[in-house]
């Protein structure tokens, strides 16, 4: 899933303080799972903002709504009737949702309420970690199912670097070295010989480097 984290309330106040009527728009997908922008967080943020502006002596209408998805036109259409009642939308969806909402409600300012962080998984409640950087050409088949692009601090394809120590990455004792994990996994798969295969120079044109990407699937197009 896409993992996001809450923005500091001060930053959000700065974004919305000049408006009088705002809609806080949550999303029921990834940001709900990572507890940053679901219905619950919409409610908490709305209360905090109401109290803040009340104390400031500013009258502010703050409404709450959470859509099934903000990266989908069908669900975004659900607020078509009410969008005009607000002079700004504060979206707690990931960066994709924020932008898609802004595209659908072009004349309305749409502000981000979360920082979109990475593609990751829930390791335990309150702990999410990165697993993929969407490089567009997945290499997991040759790395024992562990991604060196997202999990090695230097995205080394022929690792580990000289800084790997006691299974930890040179940048932090808290971080497991991805190449340590890869070697361990190859060992348990009885495939350690594969370690010696040189990973060729990667074509990064399918990555961010190649410019904004798109997937076109004629087989599913209507």
């Amino acid at each position, binding site marked *: 899933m896409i993992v996001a984290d809450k923005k500091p309330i001060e930053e959000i106040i700065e974004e919305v303080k000049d408006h009088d009527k705002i809609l806080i728009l949550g999303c029921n997908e990834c940001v709900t799972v990572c507890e940053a922008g679901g219905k619950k967080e919409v409610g908490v943020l709305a209360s905090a903002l109401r109290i803040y502006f009340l104390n400031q002596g500013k009258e502010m209408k703050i409404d709450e709504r959470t859509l099934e998805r903000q990266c989908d036109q069908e669900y975004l259409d659900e607020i078509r009737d009410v969008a005009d009642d607000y002079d700004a939308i504060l979206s707690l969806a990931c960066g994709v949702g924020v932008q898609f909402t802004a595209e659908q409600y072009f004349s309305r300012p749409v502000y981000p309420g979360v920082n979109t962080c990475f593609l990751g998984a829930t390791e335990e409640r309150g702990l999410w970690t990165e697993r993929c950087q969407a490089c567009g050409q997945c290499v997991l088949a040759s790395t024992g199912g562990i991604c060196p692009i997202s999990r090695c601090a*230097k995205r*080394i394809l022929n690792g580990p670097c*000289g800084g790997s120590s006691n299974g930890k990455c040179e940048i932090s004792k808290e971080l497991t070295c991805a190449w340590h994990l890869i*070697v361990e996994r190859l060992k348990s798969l009885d495939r*350690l010989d594969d*370690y*010696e295969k040189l*990973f060729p*120079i990667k074509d990064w044109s399918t990555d961010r480097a190649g410019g904004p990407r798109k997937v076109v699937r004629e087989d599913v197009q209507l």
Partner: protein
Amino acid sequence: MSEAKTPSKLEKILRAGHLGVTSECGPPRGTDPDAIKKKAELIKDHVDAINITDNQTSMTRLCSLASCIHLKLMGLEPILQMVTRDRNRIALQSDILGAASFDIHNMLCLTGDHQSFGDCKQGQNVHDLDSMQLIQTVRHMRDEGKFLGGDDIKRPPNMFVGAAANPFADPFEIRVPRLAKKIAAGVEFIQTQCIYNLEKFEEWMRLARERGLTEKVFILAGLTPMKSAGMAKYMKNRVPGMDVPDELVKRLAGVPKEKQAQEGIDICVESIQRLKEMEGVKGFHIMAIEWEEKVPEIVERTGLHPRPKN
């Protein structure tokens, strides 16, 4: 090992069967070329070639290439260190051409420390290639005379290609396979991480010999003399991938503070003497960090002076 493939003086000395001696100089954090020239003056008669580090520990410094040119203009033999952290494949190939245009004939391919160690923690890192792929790239440019993109290079670069190896990093079981992998990528000489744990190094060398790797690559044993017990403790606890045995820390701590530096030099000399007997060790890389003036003493006391005239 066979005929020299490049005009590198280091390569000629190694292929002639002599023990090679290299050292390194870190460029200054400013524009004064004398900083690098003075360091080089201190060691030039005692080493065959001098590494110039590339923004080591990710601190921004005068660039490795320009520093190498200063050495070249002094008539010395530089080894251009290049990390893959800061440059993509365009910049790396371009700098290789630039170096070769000044007849710089040695290069060391490295990944580089993470930028979070340095003065630009908020910067991006590039890592378009990794160190193995940089080895492949420079060998491809030299041997095929072609760019990565496939076009011909007019007057291809003629570099003797090196890399680092850390026999002490984890996991140990891939340390020798990793060396084999670098050799497969095309590396011709290796400078190792600083050796303090001689037993572990010996084990690594034994495994490398068993696979015939010491016949395929020149291994220069890396050494850094300790200035004090404090430095030994710091290296032991703080520097990733460094293996400093407790006995060594104890030995340094066992002598009065003002004598610890000399003890550090003595330890380094004793290590070299032991390593000289180790089959497969083809030379020494003496990294006396901000202590270049000690290199001549170490080289002389270990019988590695005078240096061959290539």
